Structure formats: structure tokens, C-alpha cells
């Protein structure tokens, strides 16, 4: 006997073996259908005796195993059921013959047999035969089960008769010696009359009877017989049979203790029917009287005594196995006994002893085993280890079995079986092919073993002819940070993201290369400044107020915090390229080429633009920007990214990644907005003083120079631009900046709106730089230090005391002006939502000083209405320039030259409108400077504002205008009034008030004097000049814009040159009118001899 039945369990001792075989050509599926129906009749209650007969069906049974039937009766084939197809009557005799032949194979042991004929109809089928059943077809055989039951009952009758026959054998009779097949030749020529031999025969027979009792459902009797057999056989050292008797004892005890069965597929057995306890009760002591061999079996106490305890079962099993071990030929028996013991131990949860038993199984040498048997053996070992909870050991044997499937000695390796077995080992090595478990830590440990297994899986799947599986496993290997060249395989079969389903239902989830490369952080990038949408303030306010009715509530703020941690506070715009930055690094020692890297998003229709990158070996953190275009508006969530590495596509979800820093993945996408592109007539400058600027220009201007900048805006977006606003902001707040730095006219551009896609509009912007390079204080000091009294007025300014050292031509560097032009525009769907965009242009002007006035001073002109303005003009440029102002002649200034420039200036009456008018006057006084460069390029620069207000004060006429009229003739400094001696000369002093407030009252005294031109002034003129009326005038209060006239008369008594000094006497001390306001012209009167007519 060489073929072990690895499925054996202790209960099998109880069963009768029936072989069901196909005969002739029977379709396999049809046969197994019938076989299943037959096998369903596994236990039959015998009507009369209340006993149950268990049947074990086999569709294949090696005849050499049948030879062991005497040794253990459950190995004996007692029934045969043949299934055959027979269509015509002619075939029938042939079929019948073949049935006879088949019977002969097991002929020696068969109790009964049946033939099931399918397809035969007619005369032959009509005949009633007990051993043959005819059915018209495989589908039409309703009473198969009934037939089988009858058949089983007939077997039982034979069995029972045999049992009785053997049991009643008188001990005095010659008892036949039962032998195991290999023993037969050992007993040739042995003395059959010795006591020893007789005892051996008795013992063996007793054991045989025990087997029969067990099969016949008489458990109690069986136990008794086994006990007796053990005693008998022990005394004669018949170890093989002693072992068998012990095993029988164990089997019977197991059946008693574990009515549920010890096989792990226990479903077939119905425990209620086979309950040993019931069976024991049913066996009334009287029922045992038929057993004539021993009277003591009839006692009730026998049950407890005879039945082995749970510990004893194991003990006896061990003993039995050790006896079997003495015989090489009984290897199969030993093996099966071991397996049966393991099953019992598994039920008793004595895993360690079971493992020892199994260890023993490994060492049992069964001689030359075929490869298939080896595989079966290892598989069974693995299953048994699984049964006792030794998953690792189980996995080990499964793997060995798998390797056996493809052993080099096998001509046709079963890669599929190997692969299937290998897959089954995975749990034992705590390997899960699902990458989701990866992060749970189940992949920790035993890397070497796991790797080996994965390698084998890869190899097996490749040899199986399923490169897809191979790729999947290799990917998995790679994921375990082992480098393998996948590319060879992926070129044949691209690794996808779909789940691969194996035929046996196992699903291989896709493996994502989340570690190739490793992503450290994910951050969504805001749009560039020029493209960011700006919400209109009013609408934003509404949105905020609707979000919460409270202005401030800490509770709602807190609850919002969680939401905000996910949502990012900037917006993306539909239709514009949006960016996400990943910090990645390559952990591999080789260059990693990542292709088709894109974003996985949800919420919004997003068009991902894949990128390809190549990471150097073991790179540091490497920024990768993934871009995409949202196609619709709404909230978009970045879920992850997809890559293609080594041809394997992977989808990596952020939530599944460990150690990824993310500042939130959700962002709002606002409806599309137009896009403007800005280009200027001036070259762009790289210098961006603040990063908010989208572009910037810089230029150099001489102070006072003006230049035009043409800005061209082109709509490069798809939306129509509807609104455009332009504002400017000066960055450098220069107090000494005069005039508008940037001026523009938007009307022309606005008339072009709406601006369709692709259209452009130009806006001219004037840039003028007017800076004061000369310090104001210095100028004033210069003025004062020169001691030139403006229009002859004694200056008594308190500033005069503040004397500072004069800086002579101090070098003045260039200055810088910066401003930002902001274009705010909107259009399209975004405008409806209240969004707009801003485009800003930085303008930076380096202002070079051109000419400036180092000193300003005034000289009184001859007239009170005029003065001389002296300007020291300094040319700080490197160029020669020509200075021209108003109608004066040109003045050529060489580089870094300073010249005095004189300008006669007519004082104009101050206006009453105040400052605005003064500004006008400033402009009026502006000098036009034409600088002529060497290149003959003429630039016009207007130098204005250099004359500050303090100086202008001097240049202005006092708001009180005094007019002196002598003899009907207005007098000024240079005018000499003629009069006759003896004639009354009328003198009129007129005050016109141009100031804003009423002035007066004043008193004026006219004092005449003679100037001898030698420094002596004679005031003693009472004799020469007499006043008609008073020489003192009183002027009452003069309201603004009104005037007051005082009239008097003088009488000159002698000829000569007389001067009239009109002295001003102010009686109100509180008055703070500046003294310059009271500069009255001195009157020069020439008295002549009266003309004698």
C-alpha cells in the first residue's frame, strides 16, 4: 500500500467503503452529478436495529489499498456502484460483461454491487434485476438515492452477518490468521500450533471483530473487542496489529467524544444521528447477548471504563504510531494515523503536540513518491498546520508545495498551480498585496522572506504567461523599495490601474508607486498677481454678512477654523492655468524618470496638463509644478496625482500618503475673466521694487523733462473686456515733487470698449519729472546773506538770525521717482460674479538734475513796479546747454558751469484769489531751458517751481498799492515831476487795498527834503516849501478792493530839486502787516522859475 489518503480522519474507521466508478464512456460532468447524488446517502439508519451505517464513497481507489482490508476493515471495498451509458440493446451484453469484470477487481472483498445503466430503454430495461437499475437518461433518475439506500442496507446485512459470524467463532476452533499484505510471506512455515501463534490469531481476530462492530454501529462492543485485542496482542508482541488495535480503540473513543467529527469539513456528518451517547443508550445490554465471545461486554460500566479519556486517546495514538514506525511497509498507515491524531489534537487545541506529530509526518519516508504525491503531501501538511494555528509553518509548506509544482524534474511544470499556492502563502508571511495595508504596518518585518516570495510570485506569474500579473507583482516589489527593471515587461504590457481579477476570484488591487518619487508636500499656488481675481468690495461685504449674522463671534470663528484648514483663501479662475507645487524626491539610487505626472481632482471639470520630469539619483527635495486648467467654476479639490513610472501608471491619493504636508486642497474656482497683456513703448526693466507688479519700466529723465509712454493693452483671454479703470499711486512720497508725475487720458481708450479677444488698445501716459534739487533754506540764506534788500525794503525777517554756513555748489545726485499704474478690468462671466482683475505697471524714473539755481536774489529796479531777478544757474549735466527764458537771449552753459542770469521782472499785483493764482504766477515765471546735447538733440525741460514762496513774496507787489500823483501826474522813482514856483502843486495819495482784509486807519506825513547828492539831506525847508492845508493825511479804514484818496497841495517858494518823503505812521500797534506793504514811492519834484508869459 503506497498511496496514503491524506483526508483520513478517525471517523473513517466507522465507515464502509463503497467505490463508485464510471464504466465505459460516461461524460465526466454527468458522472459527477450522479456521484454527488449517490454520495449524499452517506449514512443510512437501519430500520430494525436502530443502528446507523456510515458509507464512505470513493470514485477512485487503488486495488493495492484494498489488500489492507483485513488489517483495517474500513479500507476494504465492500460495495461497488458502476455507472454506465448504454443506448442500444445490442450493447447490453457487453456492458454486463464489463460490469462483471469490474466486480472482479475488488471481488474478494465486495459484499454487494450495483450497476446503474443510463439511456437504455426497451425490453432489457423492463427486466427486474436487483443489481441493475435502468434509467432512460441522466436527468430522469428520480430514485437513485432510494436505490443506493437499498444497496446500503444490503451491505449492512452482509456486514452484520459477517460480524456475527466472526464474533461467534469459538475460541477453541482454529482461527484463521489475518495478515497485512506484506506479512504474508513472513508466516510461511511458522508453527501454527504454538500458543503464541494461537494468541496472535485470536488477538488479530478480536481486533477484526472490533473493526466490524465499529462499522456496524456498535461502538460499545467495538471498544470492548479492541481492549481485548490490545491485551492479547501485547502479550505476543505483535506490534503492527497492536498498533492497529490501539488505533481502533482511539478511533472508537474519538467517535464517542467528538460526535461532530474531527475532519475540518464536518458538514457532511449529521451529529444528531451519529451521537455516540445515544448510540450507547440504544445498545441495551440485552442487545449484546448475540455477542457470545465475552459476557463482560454487556455491562453498562463498560462504556466509561472502555472508552478512552481525551488524554488517553493521544497517548494511545502515540503508542500506535510508534508501533507502526517499526515497520517500513506500514508507512502509509503510520502517516494516516499521524494525520488522524493531528486532527484530534487540533480539536483538543493542543497545537504543540500536534506540531510534534506533524513534524513526525515529515520524517515518515514513503519511499519513492511521485511529484504529484509530494505536492499533495506538502499541501496537506500545510493545511494541517493551518488547522492548528501555525500559519507560518503552514505558509512554509505551502510554499514548498508550490515549488514542488515546478520542480525541474517535472516535465510539464504547473506554474498556475504554483502561483495559486504561492498566493495562498501570502497571509502566512503577513504579506498583503493590497497597498492600502502597506501603511498599516503589516508589511513590517521578514523582508528577506517576503521578498523571496514576491520574487517567486513574479517568476511564476511570468511563466504562467500572464505578464500583467507579473508587472503588478513587480510593482509591488518596487513599492517595497526593491529596484527591478520593470520596463522590459511594461513594454509588452502596460501596467494599468484596473484591478486584475484572477480566475479563482482573488482580486489584485492596483499598486501605486506612492514612493516613486516620494512626495513631501503639496501646495496649491496662487495665480500670478496680474491674474488674481479681486472681489468687488461691496459684494464681499454682503457675502460675509450672510455667512454669519454676528459681527464677531468666537464660536463661529472656531467652527470655521476646521473648514478653513482645508479651504484655501485664494481663488483660481476658470480657463486659466493653475499650478500646484509638489516637493518630491527620488529615494532610488538611479535616475527616475516620471512621465505623465498630473493632478487628480474632483469637484470641477479640470484639464490636467501632464508633466514629465527626471529626478537624479537620491535627489534632495525637488519642486515640481503640476499645472491644469479648470474648465468650470466651483470648488475644486486636489485629491492626488497620477504618475507613470517605468511604464506603470499609478494613482496616488493624498489621503493615503504619509508624511505629506499640505496646506489644504480645496480652492474656489471663479468664473472666467478676461486677460490683459501689457506692453509698453519703453523697454521693460528687470527691476521690480515690489513683487505685486506684473511688469515695470524704468527710464532716466532730466529734471523737468517730460516723456510720453505708450501702454498697449491687449486682451489675450477669451472673454470680452467690459470695464477698465486706471489709477496711479506714487510710491516715493516726495514733498518737493511739483506737478503731476503721471498724467494720462483714458477717454480714447474707453471708447474702444468692450475689447474683444485679441484686440488691443493704447493709452498714452505722460511722465514728467519736476523735482527741486536746490534746498529751500539755502536759497533763502543766499538771498539774505547777499544783503540785497528786495525793492529797497529793509528786511527785518526773524529768519535772518538763523545763519547757517553756506554750502557752495554742493554736489547733487540723481533722485528716483516710483509710481504704480494699476489697471483694473473685468468682463465675461466673472464680472457678473463681481470679480475683476488688476494689472499693475511699475514706473521708475531716475531723475537727473539738469540745471538748478544755486542762488536767487532780487535787485530793485528803478521802478517800484519792477525788480531784477538774479539767478545763479548751475549746469550739473555733462552736456553743454543753452538756456533761454522768455524773450531773453540765450545763455550757453558749459558742463558743470555756474553763471549768473539776470532777468528783469515786472512785478504784478497780487491776486486775491490766493494760492491758485500764485501757482499760475509760478508757472509764468518758469524758465524754459533748452539743453543742447552734443548729439544736437534738443530736449526741452521746464524748470519751474524753483522759486519758492518765500522768494516769491519778495517778488510780489504789496497788496496795498500806493499811487502818488503830483500835479496830476503819477510819480514813481524815476519820474521827475515839474512844477512852477509859486503855483500850488496838488498832491494826491491814493491807497488801493488789494488785500483780503480791511486796513487802516493810517496817518501819512509828507516831509520834503533836499538831497545835496553828497550824503547830506536838508530837512530844514520851512522857508522854501509851504503846505497848503495840512502836511498830514488821515486815511480811514479801507475795505478790500476799495480805495481811499487824500488830496493836499504844496507851494514851492524857491526853485530847486525837492524830494518828498511820505512817511507812514501806524498808530495801531497790534497791526502785523508786513512793512513791505507800506513802501511808498519817494517823489522827486523839480521846482522851476515860473514862466513869464
Amino acid at each position, binding site marked *: 500500500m503506497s498511496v496514503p489518503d491524506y483526508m483520513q480522519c478517525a471517523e473513517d474507521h466507522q465507515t464502509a467503503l463503497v467505490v463508485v466508478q464510471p464504466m465505459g464512456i460516461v461524460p465526466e460532468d454527468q458522472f459527477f452529478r450522479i456521484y454527488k447524488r449517490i454520495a449524499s446517502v452517506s449514512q443510512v439508519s437501519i430500520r430494525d436495529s436502530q443502528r446507523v451505517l456510515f458509507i464512505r464513497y470513493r470514485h477512485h481507489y487503488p486495488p493495492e489499498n484494498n489488500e489492507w482490508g483485513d488489517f483495517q476493515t474500513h479500507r476494504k471495498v465492500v460495495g461497488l456502484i458502476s455507472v454506465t451509458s448504454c443506448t442500444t440493446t445490442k450493447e447490453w451484453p457487453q456492458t454486463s460483461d464489463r460490469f462483471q469484470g469490474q466486480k472482479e477487481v475488488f471481488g474478494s472483498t465486495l459484499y454487494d454491487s450495483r450497476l446503474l445503466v443510463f439511456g437504455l430503454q426497451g425490453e432489457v430495461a423492463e427486466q427486474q434485476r436487483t443489481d441493475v437499475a435502468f434509467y432512460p437518461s441522466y436527468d430522469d433518475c428520480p430514485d437513485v438515492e432510494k436505490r443506493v439506500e437499498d444497496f446500503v442496507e444490503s451491505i449492512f446485512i452482509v456486514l452484520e452477518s459477517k460480524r456475527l459470524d466472526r464474533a461467534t467463532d469459538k475460541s477453541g476452533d482454529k482461527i484463521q490468521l489475518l495478515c497485512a499484505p506484506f506479512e504474508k510471506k513472513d508466516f510461511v512455515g511458522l508453527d501454527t500450533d504454538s500458543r503464541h501463534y494461537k494468541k496472535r490469531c485470536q488477538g488479530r481476530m478480536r481486533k477484526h471483530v472490533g473493526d466490524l462492530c465499529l462499522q456496524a454501529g456498535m461502538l460499545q462492543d467495538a471498544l470492548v473487542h479492541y481492549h481485548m485485542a490490545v491485551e492479547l496482542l501485547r502479550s505476543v508482541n505483535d506490534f503492527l496489529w497492536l498498533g492497529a488495535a490501539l488505533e481502533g480503540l482511539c478511533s472508537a473513543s474519538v467517535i464517542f467524544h467528538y460526535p461532530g467529527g474531527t475532519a475540518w469539513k464536518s458538514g457532511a456528518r449529521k451529529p444528531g444521528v451519529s451521537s455516540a451517547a445515544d448510540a450507547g443508550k440504544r445498545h441495551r445490554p440485552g442487545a449484546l447477548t448475540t455477542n457470545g465471545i465475552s459476557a463482560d461486554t454487556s455491562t453498562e460500566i463498560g462504556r466509561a471504563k472502555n472508552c478512552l479519556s481525551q488524554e488517553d486517546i493521544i497517548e494511545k495514538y502515540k503508542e500506535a504510531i510508534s508501533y507502526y514506525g517499526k515497520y517500513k511497509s506500514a508507512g502509509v498507515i503510520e502517516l494516516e494515523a499521524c494525520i488522524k491524531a493531528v486532527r484530534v489534537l487540533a480539536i483538543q487545541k493542543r497545537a504543540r503536540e500536534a506540531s510534534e506529530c506533524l513534524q513526525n509526518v515529515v520524517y515518515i519516508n514513503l519511499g519513492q513518491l511521485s511529484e504529484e504525491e509530494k505536492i499533495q503531501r506538502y499541501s496537506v501538511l500545510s493545511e494541517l498546520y493551518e488547522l492548528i494555528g501555525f500559519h507560518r509553518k503552514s505558509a512554509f509548506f505551502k510554499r514548498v508545495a508550490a515549488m514542488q509544482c515546478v520542480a525541474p524534474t517535472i516535465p510539464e511544470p504547473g506554474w498556475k498551480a504554483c502561483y495559486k499556492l504561492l498566493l495562498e502563502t501570502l497571509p502566512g508571511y503577513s504579506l498583503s498585496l493590497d497597498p492600502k495595508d502597506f501603511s498599516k504596518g503589516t508589511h513590517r*518585518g521578514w523582508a528577506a522572506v517576503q521578498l523571496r516570495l514576491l520574487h517567486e510570485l513574479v517568476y511564476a506569474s511570468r511563466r504562467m504567461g500572464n505578464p500583467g500579473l507579473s508587472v503588478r507583482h513587480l510593482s509591488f516589489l518596487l513599492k517595497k523599495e526593491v529596484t527591478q527593471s520593470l520596463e522590459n515587461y511594461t513594454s509588452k504590457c502596460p501596467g494599468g490601474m484596473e484591478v486584475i481579477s484572477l480566475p479563482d476570484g482573488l482580486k489584485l488591487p492596483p499598486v501605486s508607486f506612492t514612493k516613486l518619487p516620494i512626495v513631501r508636500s503639496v501646495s496649491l499656488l496662487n495665480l500670478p498677481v496680474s491674474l488674481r481675481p479681486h472681489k468687488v468690495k461691496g459684494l464681499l461685504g454682503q457675502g460675509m454678512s450672510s455667512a454669519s449674522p454676528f459681527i464677531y463671534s468666537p464660536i463661529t470663528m472656531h467652527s470655521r477654523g476646521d473648514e478653513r484648514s482645508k479651504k484655501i483663501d485664494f481663488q483660481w479662475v476658470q480657463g486659466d492655468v493653475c499650478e500646484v507645487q509638489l516637493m518630491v524626491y527620488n529615494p532610488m539610487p538611479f535616475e527616475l524618470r516620471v512621465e505623465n505626472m498630473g493632478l487628480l481632482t474632483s469637484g470641477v471639470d479640470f484639464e490636467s496638463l501632464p508633466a514629465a520630469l527626471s529626478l537624479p539619483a537620491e535627489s534632495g527635495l525637488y519642486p515640481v509644478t503640476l499645472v491644469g486648467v479648470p474648465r468650470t467654476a466651483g470648488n475644486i479639490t486636489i485629491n492626488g496625482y497620477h504618475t507613470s513610472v517605468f511604464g506603470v501608471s499609478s494613482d496616488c491619493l493624498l489621503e493615503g500618503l504619509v508624511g505629506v504636508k499640505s496646506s489644504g486642497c480645496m480652492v474656489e474656482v471663479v468664473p472666467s475673466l478676461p486677460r490683459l497683456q501689457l506692453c509698453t513703448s519703453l523697454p521693460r526693466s528687470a527691476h521690480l521694487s515690489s513683487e505685486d507688479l506684473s511688469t515695470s519700466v524704468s527710464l532716466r529723465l532730466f529734471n523737468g523733462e517730460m516723456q510720453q509712454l505708450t501702454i498697449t493693452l491687449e486682451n489675450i483671454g477669451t472673454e470680452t473686456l467690459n470695464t477698465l479703470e486706471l489709477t496711479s499711486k506714487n510710491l516715493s512720497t516726495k514733498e518737493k515733487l511739483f506737478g503731476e508725475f503721471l498724467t494720462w487720458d483714458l477717454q480714447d481708450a474707453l471708447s474702444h470698449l468692450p475689447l474683444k479677444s485679441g484686440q488691443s488698445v493704447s493709452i498714452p501716459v505722460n511722465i514728467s519729472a519736476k523735482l527741486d534739487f536746490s534746498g529751500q533754506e539755502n536759497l533763502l540764506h543766499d538771498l539774505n546773506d547777499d544783503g540785497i534788500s528786495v525793492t529797497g525794503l529793509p528786511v527785518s525777517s526773524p529768519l535772518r538770525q538763523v545763519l547757517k554756513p553756506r554750502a557752495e555748489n554742493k554736489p547733487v545726485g540723481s533722485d528716483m521717482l516710483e509710481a504704480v499704474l494699476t489697471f483694473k478690468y473685468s468682463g465675461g462671466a466673472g464680472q457678473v460674479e463681481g470679480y475683476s482683475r488688476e494689472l499693475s505697471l511699475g514706473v521708475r524714473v531716475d531723475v537727473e538734475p539738469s540745471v538748478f539755481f544755486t542762488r536767487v536774489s532780487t535787485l530793485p529796479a528803478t521802478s517800484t513796479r519792477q525788480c531784477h531777478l538774479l539767478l545763479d544757474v548751475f549746469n550739473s549735466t555733462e552736456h553743454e546747454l543753452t538756456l533761454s527764458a522768455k524773450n531773453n537771449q540765450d545763455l550757453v552753459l558749459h558742463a558743470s558751469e555756474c553763471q549768473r542770469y539776470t532777468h528783469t521782472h515786472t512785478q504784478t499785483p497780487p491776486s486775491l484769489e490766493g494760492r491758485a493764482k500764485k501757482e499760475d504766477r509760478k508757472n509764468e515765471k518758469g524758465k524754459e531751458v533748452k539743453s543742447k546735447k552734443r548729439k544736437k538733440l534738443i530736449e526741452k525741460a521746464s524748470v519751474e517751481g524753483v522759486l519758492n514762496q518765500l522768494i516769491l513774496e519778495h517778488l510780489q507787489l504789496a497788496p496795498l498799492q500806493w499811487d502818488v500823483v503830483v500835479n496830476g501826474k503819477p510819480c514813481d522813482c524815476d519820474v521827475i515831476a515839474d512844477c512852477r514856483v509859486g503855483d500850488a502843486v496838488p498832491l494826491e495819495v491814493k491807497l488801493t487795498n488789494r488785500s483780503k482784509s480791511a486796513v487802516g486807519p493810517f496817518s501819512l506825513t509828507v516831509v520834503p527834503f533836499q538831497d545835496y547828492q553828497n550824503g547830506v539831506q536838508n530837512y530844514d525847508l520851512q522857508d522854501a516849501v509851504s503846505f497848503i492845508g495840512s502836511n498830514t493825511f488821515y486815511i480811514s479804514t479801507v475795505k478790500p478792493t476799495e480805495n481811499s484818496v487824500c488830496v493836499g497841495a504844496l507851494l514851492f517858494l524857491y526853485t530847486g530839486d525837492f524830494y518828498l518823503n511820505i512817511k507812514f505812521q501806524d498808530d495801531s500797534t497790534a497791526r502785523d502787516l508786513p512793512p513791505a506793504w507800506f513802501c511808498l514811492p519817494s517823489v522827486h519834484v523839480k521846482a522851476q522859475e515860473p514862466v513869464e508869459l
Partner: protein
Amino acid sequence: MAVCIAVIAKENCPLYIRSVPTQGELKFHYTVHTSLDVVEEKISGVGKALADQRELYLGLLYPTEDYKVYGYVTNSKVKFVIVVDSSNTSLRDNEIRSMFRKLHNSFTDVMCNPFYNPGDPIQSKAFDSIVSTMMVQAC
């Protein structure tokens, strides 16, 4: 002396495994790995009440044709496995015990290292040298 010494964490992943014939490393991995079944069985077999004064030394886990596998479990369920050659009959149980004790002491030292993260593979040189003294000198 030992041919393979392994330290296995509470979660049954190896913290340290070293064997003398380096080419047959995988074989020892299998051996130690499968021995864990027995270790687990032995640990669970001991009654809860006795857990406190449980003997750390588990004794022979299982013999194979060529090797004997011995086990030892610390109170924190860290397992030590020593594989010795079956032919080395001179080795007595007491010697195995002392080897385990030595190993345990050294392991405790490793754990005391503030820079060691529990659960990481052991890379201590001191531990390595202790293990080396217990291993068969490869010729």
C-alpha cells in the same frame, strides 16, 4: 555555538537576525520565521495567572534535521531565537540559557540608548559584538 541568532519584536517582525553561513541566510529566515508559530503557541499556552513568574526561557522550540531551535521571550514579548547545529551535542541546556541571558542583557542596553526608536532594526555595534561572541566562528 549558535549558527543563527534572531531578535524578533513584539509584532513578530525581525529586529535583528544574523547567521553564520551568510549564503544560507534565507534558510535561517525561514527557520526562525516558522519557529514563531511554536513561540506564540507556547506563550499563549501559559496560563494568565502564571504570566508574572513565567519562565522566560522557552526551551527547545523544535528540532529539524540539521538544527535545533531554542526560544526565549522577554516580558515585553520580544523574542530571542537561537539556532544551533544538531551535531553540536556538547551544548547543554544551561549554556543555552546563559546565552539567552547574555543576549537579553545586551538587548536591554540597546533599548536604553535614547537614540534608539523601539521597533527599528538594531544596528548597535555593541550588540553585534556580543552576538559575534556567541556565534560559531565561520572558517
